[in-house]
């Protein structure tokens, strides 16, 4: 790639003052600094998720057993496929964004509008996918689960609700289950007070991590939309460069990057 950063300039000249030693505009550098701080926030969130996952390793729910549904397919068993689709949507919208940046480097306005427009569409697709996933998660399953008197979540071993499986995986017989069931409450779905999928922290982290990321996606879509309008109005063409697209592109790729980590550390591990 051409540009100032690929020129060979002696160190003494680079650091002698009067120019950026990194050969980037201040806007791009500050976008990077913002992304570092944001990455630390997400890093902290995902590390604390790892903390509780290890602390409660024996009772932490397995995500491939929680996320098994797909829209318009009814009661199917398609583990993680929907999350994989969401990941794919975000990757594709990241690709359209990098193509918009590339077109900007060639000062090709119509191509920038095309690719940036597709990126906005991809962002909306991701947001609506997340709305579906949240509503499904909050609504819960038909069968529900059981909250025992000590607060632990147990799952039904059979459709007839006679026997239960404890959070640590121990399956009890109907006779052992009966006194526990008598003192327990049925729970359906998840919110910040109850969680049928397992320990309460699992739901709290789901809402906080995917919610915080989803809010980033939402702001990204809004910023992309504003810059798309600016590009259509010819602001970048007049300035002689498309760095605006490059900077919003950095943010958008970062959102994709975070999802790659959320996908692994929340859904897969």
């Amino acid at each position: 790639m051409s540009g100032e950063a690929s020129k060979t300039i002696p160190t003494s000249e680079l650091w002698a003052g009067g120019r950026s030693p990194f050969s980037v505009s201040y806007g791009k550098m500050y976008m990077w600094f913002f992304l570092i701080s944001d990455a630390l926030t997400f890093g902290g969130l995902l590390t604390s998720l790892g903390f509780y996952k290890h602390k409660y390793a024996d009772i932490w729910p397995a995500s491939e057993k929680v996320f098994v549904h797909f829209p318009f397919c009814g009661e199917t068993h398609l583990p993680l496929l929907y999350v994989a689709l969401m990941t794919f949507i975000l990757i594709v919208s990241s690709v359209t964004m990098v193509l918009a940046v590339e077109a900007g480097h060639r000062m090709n306005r119509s191509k920038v509008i095309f690719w940036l427009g597709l990126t906005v569409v991809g962002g909306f697709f991701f947001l609506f996918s997340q709305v579906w996933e949240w509503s499904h998660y909050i609504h819960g399953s038909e069968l529900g689960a059981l909250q025992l008197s000590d607060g632990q979540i147990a799952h039904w071993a059979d459709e007839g609700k006679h026997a239960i499986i404890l959070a640590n995986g121990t399956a009890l017989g109907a006779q052992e289950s009966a006194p526990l069931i008598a003192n327990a409450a049925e729970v359906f779905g998840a919110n910040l007070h109850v969680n049928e999928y397992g320990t309460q922290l699992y739901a709290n982290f789901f809402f906080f991590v995917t919610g915080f990321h989803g809010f980033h996606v939402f702001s990204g879509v809004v910023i992309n939309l504003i810059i798309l309008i600016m590009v259509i109005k010819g602001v970048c063409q007049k300035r002689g460069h498309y760095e605006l697209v490059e900077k919003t592109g950095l943010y958008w790729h970062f959102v994709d990057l975070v999802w790659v980590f959320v996908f692994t550390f929340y859904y897969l591990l």
Partner: protein
Amino acid sequence: MERDDIIEYSLDAHHSEEEGKALRKKIVFVTILLATVTAIEVLLGVWWSSLHLPWTMVKLGFIGMTLLKAGYIVLVFMHLGDERKSLKWAILGPYMLFISYLIFICLTEAMKLYDLRHLFGWL
């Protein structure tokens, strides 16, 4: 008033049609790679237990694949690989230092707490 103390680096951020073609080829390659790795991750996540693979190995595989994807996104899509080395390491160095310490300290504590939970029978 025109300022002569700021070099407009962005004015230099252009490339020719040929360079664009090569870049697009690279983008297509990375896209296919990212999609393939994601597909492998999902298949492994669904089937690892029925394939009788040890969980530690699967876990390290997931982390390795995630870092591979992250590397391609940051270095190619975010063009950090094309920036000056000083900028690249000013961004990556401190972050890696802090985050690896945080991960180390949190997971060590968490595993200790796991043992204590079982030792004293806490929930």
